[in-house]
């Protein structure tokens, strides 16, 4: 069912939704960007239409909603372990189709990989509903169409804003009541069909271990500085490290948390006794690239990368992920010609 809502009435809808949900959306923070006079677009809680920035890509993805930067797993009290409580808040998150698809990737790791579900992820994930913002133009670095992540059917609300009105398709019956007084319309969601950037993802059978030693990765050893920003902004990077802390005022008590980790950052593979793997940044670029567009697909039948372009947007060394895939394609071609 679709509705058209006057902009002036949309805040009423948001406040009704807020009775049950915390609402997160892209918001613009004035002058907080990397360069002076630039703004930073970040996810934050919102309560009015005015606060939501529909026209910019957020620097960080919405994954924090289900996978916080640091998350307490449990508390220590002497020899006792006390599970961190589930705050139980329901969440509505405004996001783009590629980002809904990114949640599907996180689901694979946290809910399907290994012998057990990750209960901390699950209990947050179960409370999230998606409000997909129509995105038919994309941004310069996007390549979602190439990754097949430009469309999604999984949403509670699909939304398109114009100067006067807000068009909403409601799929979730629990939310229709809020829209009951609004005029119905025949709005149907649209999805982007062509990005400025395009890339062909190599076929599984074209990736051989010979490519692991390819010269293409060596260039990244000189360029990448291992800052890990590409990992932090990526909506599908799901790695984390366990971290314990004790409280200063009572050293009997403390907690175990998990914190985000990144495969580009020093120490990611380091073991006791100084054993360390992938010591060059080129090896890490190879590891990340193949994880995003090859080995995840081998395991789960879908690529991990959703083509959001964030890693390219933040890289201080201007390393383009599309560029890396293209180089890989070139190397595959050469390998075939030689072989």
């Amino acid at each position, binding site marked *: 069912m679709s509705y058209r809502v006057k902009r002036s009435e949309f805040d009423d809808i948001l406040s009704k939704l807020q009775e049950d949900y915390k609402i997160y959306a892209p918001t613009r923070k004035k002058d907080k960007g990397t360069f002076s006079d630039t703004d930073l677009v970040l996810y934050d809680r919102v309560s009015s239409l005015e606060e939501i920035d529909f026209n910019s890509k957020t620097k960080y993805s919405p994954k924090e909603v289900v996978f916080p930067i640091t998350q307490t797993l449990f508390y220590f009290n002497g020899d006792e372990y006390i599970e961190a409580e589930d705050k139980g808040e329901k969440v509505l998150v405004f996001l783009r189709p590629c980002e809904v698809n990114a949640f599907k990737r996180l689901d694979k790791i946290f809910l399907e990989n290994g012998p057990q579900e990750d209960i901390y992820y699950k209990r947050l994930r179960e409370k999230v509903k998606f409000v997909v913002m129509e995105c038919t133009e994309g941004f310069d670095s996007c390549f979602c169409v190439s990754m097949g992540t430009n469309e999604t059917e999984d949403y509670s609300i699909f939304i398109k804003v114009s100067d006067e009105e807000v068009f909403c398709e409601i799929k979730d019956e629990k939310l229709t009541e809020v829209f009951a007084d609004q005029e119905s319309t025949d709005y149907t969601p649209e999805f982007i069909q062509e990005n400025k950037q395009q890339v062909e993802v190599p076929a599984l059978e074209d990736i051989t271990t010979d490519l692991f030693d390819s010269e293409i990765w060596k260039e990244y050893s000189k360029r990448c500085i291992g800052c890990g920003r590409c990992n932090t902004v990526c909506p599908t990077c799901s790695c984390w490290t366990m971290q314990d802390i004790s409280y200063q005022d009572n050293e009997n008590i403390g907690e175990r948390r998990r914190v985000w980790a990144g495969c580009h950052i020093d120490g990611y593979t380091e073991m*006791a006794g100084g054993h360390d793997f992938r010591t060059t940044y080129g090896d890490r670029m190879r590891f990340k690239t193949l994880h995003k567009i090859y080995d995840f697909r081998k395991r789960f039948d879908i690529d991990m990368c959703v083509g959001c372009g964030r890693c390219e947007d933040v890289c201080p060394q201007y390393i383009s992920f599309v560029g890396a895939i293209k180089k890989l394609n070139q190397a595959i071609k050469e390998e075939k010609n030689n072989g």
Partner: protein
Amino acid sequence: MVKNPYIPTAVEIISIRPESEVDYTYRLAIDLDVDNGQFVEVSIPKVGECPISVSDFGNDYIDLTIRHVGKVTNQIANLEVGDKLGIRGPYGNGFPIEEYQGKDLVIAAGGTGLAPVKSIINHFYRNPEEINSLTLLLGFRNPANILFADEIAKWEEADHIDVILTVDEGDEEWAGNVGLVTGFVEQINFTDLANKEVVIVGPPIMMKFTSLEFMKHDIKEEQIWVSFERKMSCGIGKCGHCKMDDTYICVEGPVFNYTKAKNLVD
């Protein structure tokens, strides 16, 4: 309610045995269903966790042989009998010992690599009828680093077990073999090749070159089994640290047949 996979169980230490200056075997009072070669995550509250192989187990205990090398393991060094350790697991796949039944099994272990295979050795030590022969090729850095010396002596006594023990560097009192494990592979009886299974566990370099050495003696890749160590934060396929290509060492490993292991790239 689903059990929280991250919350350890506090388990009492019932004995502590020094194996070398830095390696100690902790016997913990816990009834755990373990396969040979699996590992557990060991916790010290407010310090951290680390993966440790189960070096032996019985109905109401598991043994962990721990080298004191860092943050968590150095805290474990301060514990005494009666204290508690946090345990979760067991994790990983373990060795397929049913495939070794009736075979001529060779186990080559370097240093702490002996810990994850010790329970297999003891299994076949106690059940000689299950195996045709067992050859152990055990290498340590120096005589002071030899682990499980009493048990090695016990294995040497057994009729169905051959033991080749070597150290990289001897000392004045050492009268035994000196040299790397790879150099002693040729002393193994390579007659009934088809009936052999070879388990190789140790540092990455040792596993690589020892495997190649066995293959020089016409042992097939399918007959070789290795166990990997990687950084691990979760043990259950969620944290990503242990991944090599599309393989999660904590879930599909740590034990791999060589046919698979040779293709894993960090």
